[in-house]
């Protein structure tokens, strides 16, 4: 029983403790004797123990629903606020992915490698104060504060398809502004051939950066890059919100990139630095596995990932297991008309 008491969840423990014995005030609480990071990750530890046997099978799916019975101790919720913006008329009549799914199914390894980790681990993420610096090969480098991010440029809604390299996709109503506007303001010079992006590095706030186990063995901070013409393309968006509100932490608050014709990992989250540079910058997944993830990462049904096909994808909307949601993947994720010209001189099989 003491073992159970130690590994269980707080409220559940308290209930048990009351049943078993009333703790005296001098008794040291478990969170006082357990190192803070171990205590905060106790459910992760439990999950890690899942391999112990069939009895622990359930713990690996403790995503929601009835498993919530054990995990109702979410202390704080990340605050989002309503934004003012010009809305997207959705002329293509795209079916949106429900907001609850957009905000609970995230690849944001800074907060854990499982899709459901970020929504759990990012709720106390503090974005105030925030500074985004625009620097490098430009005449007028500048810095944006948290407030500026939603006020410096007129906001508009963009409903985009988002295609993950893992062969699933969503349709998300982003709110933001064109990256080009932000870049032009800094007046890039003639050596600005590329734009490099960097995510916040703050291991105290981002458990994945503090622990290789939680962060999936990636070297942080996460970095990404675009060619200058890609960055200046009108489709390339700096997003500060989705579904009409500021970004939830797990989606990359307070500001992130959205490049809809490229695989999702190019759309770097929680950006603190944008830099004009002369030579092609490094990008995180390319460093990690260059044979699997290229610098360009344009959505391309003809170039398979070495371990799976990219010819089709599953569109995540609503519906359970029987949602017939497998669709063909489009070249450039269906945005070829606006972007294909930029690549007419390069071999897309080689430069994947």
């Amino acid at each position, binding site marked *: 029983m003491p073992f159970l008491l130690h590994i269980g969840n707080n409220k559940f423990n308290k209930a048990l403790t009351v049943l078993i014995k009333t703790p005296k005030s001098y008794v040291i609480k478990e969170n006082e004797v357990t190192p803070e990071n171990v205590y905060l990750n106790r459910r992760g530890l439990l999950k890690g123990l899942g*391999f112990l046997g*069939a009895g622990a*099978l*359930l713990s*690996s799916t403790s*995503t929601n629903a009835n498993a919530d019975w054990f995990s109702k101790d979410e202390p704080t919720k990340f605050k989002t606020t309503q934004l003012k913006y010009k809305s997207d008329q959705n002329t293509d009549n795209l079916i949106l992915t429900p907001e609850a799914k957009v905000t609970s*199914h995230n690849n944001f390894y800074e907060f854990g490698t499982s899709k459901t980790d970020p929504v759990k681990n990012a709720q106390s993420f503090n974005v105030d104060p925030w500074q985004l610096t625009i620097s490098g090969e430009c005449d007028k480098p500048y810095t944006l504060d948290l407030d500026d991010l939603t006020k410096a440029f007129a906001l508009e809604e963009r409903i985009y398809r988002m295609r993950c390299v893992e062969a699933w996709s969503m349709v998300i109503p982003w709110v933001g502004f064109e990256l080009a506007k932000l870049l032009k303001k800094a007046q890039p010079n003639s050596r600005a051939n590329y734009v490099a992006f960097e995510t916040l590095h703050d291991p105290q706030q981002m458990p994945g950066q503090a622990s290789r186990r939680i962060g999936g063995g990636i070297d942080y901070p996460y970095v990404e890059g675009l060619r200058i013409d890609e960055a200046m393309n009108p489709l390339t968006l700096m997003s500060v919100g989705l579904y009409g509100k500021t970004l939830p932490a797990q989606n990359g608050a307070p500001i992130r990139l959205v490049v809809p014709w490229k695989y999702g990992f190019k759309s770097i989250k929680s950006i603190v630095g944008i830099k004009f540079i002369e030579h092609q910058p490094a990008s995180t997944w390319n460093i990690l596995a260059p044979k699997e993830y290229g610098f360009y990462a344009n959505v391309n049904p003809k170039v398979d990932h070495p371990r799976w096909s990219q010819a089709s994808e599953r569109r995540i909307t609503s519906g*359970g297991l029987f*949602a017939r949601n497998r669709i063909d993947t489009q070249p450039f994720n269906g945005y070829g008309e606006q972007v294909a010209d930029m690549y007419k001189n390069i071999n897309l099989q080689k430069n994947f």
Partner: protein
Amino acid sequence: MKKDTVLTQAIYKKSSLKHKVKLFKFFIHLSALLPLINAYYLAFTDQLGADPVEAIIHFTGIGAFNLLLLSLAITPISKRFRVSLLLKVRRLVGLYSFVYAFCHLANFLVFEVQFDWVLFLNEIIKRPYITVGMAGLLILLSLAVTSISLLKRRMGKRWQKLHNWVYLAVALVGIHFYWSVKSEIIEPSIYLIITLALLSLRVKKLTQFKK
């Protein structure tokens, strides 16, 4: 009179063991089936995360691996601690490992590629990590089919030979898991270590197997 008591005691002992085995089996049925039914219920009703397809594939996959390792841990544990009760449920645990593995593959066909047979076969042939996993599953299938007592008796010595293939199967499953992840290799590495530990207890058998 004395003889009589010994006999009844023996009978009593035997029936109580039978009773225990039954109870234990019932417990195994419950703890293997309930999570599976629960996961499918949540997935069908769109409550298993944003992408129930991915979730159910991962759940059944890791469940199959857990049960396979458990079935392989039974022999060394029961030998070490002399609990014959455990040996009586080894087949059942192994069969449930196959059930989970079968669901894992069925999920991939029915919910992931959604009966696109060309894509399904292509993925199995072209993707080494899936090929490896499929090979492991085929071994488990042959073991499951031949697990019925009648066949065991009929096959004689060949039965044990066939069932030694489980050691290859568990190695393949370990590689399949390790190969399938993007960068988070710690969990699959732990599984590989456990797999190797369980195999190392059978070094003698494995070297004989080679001959």
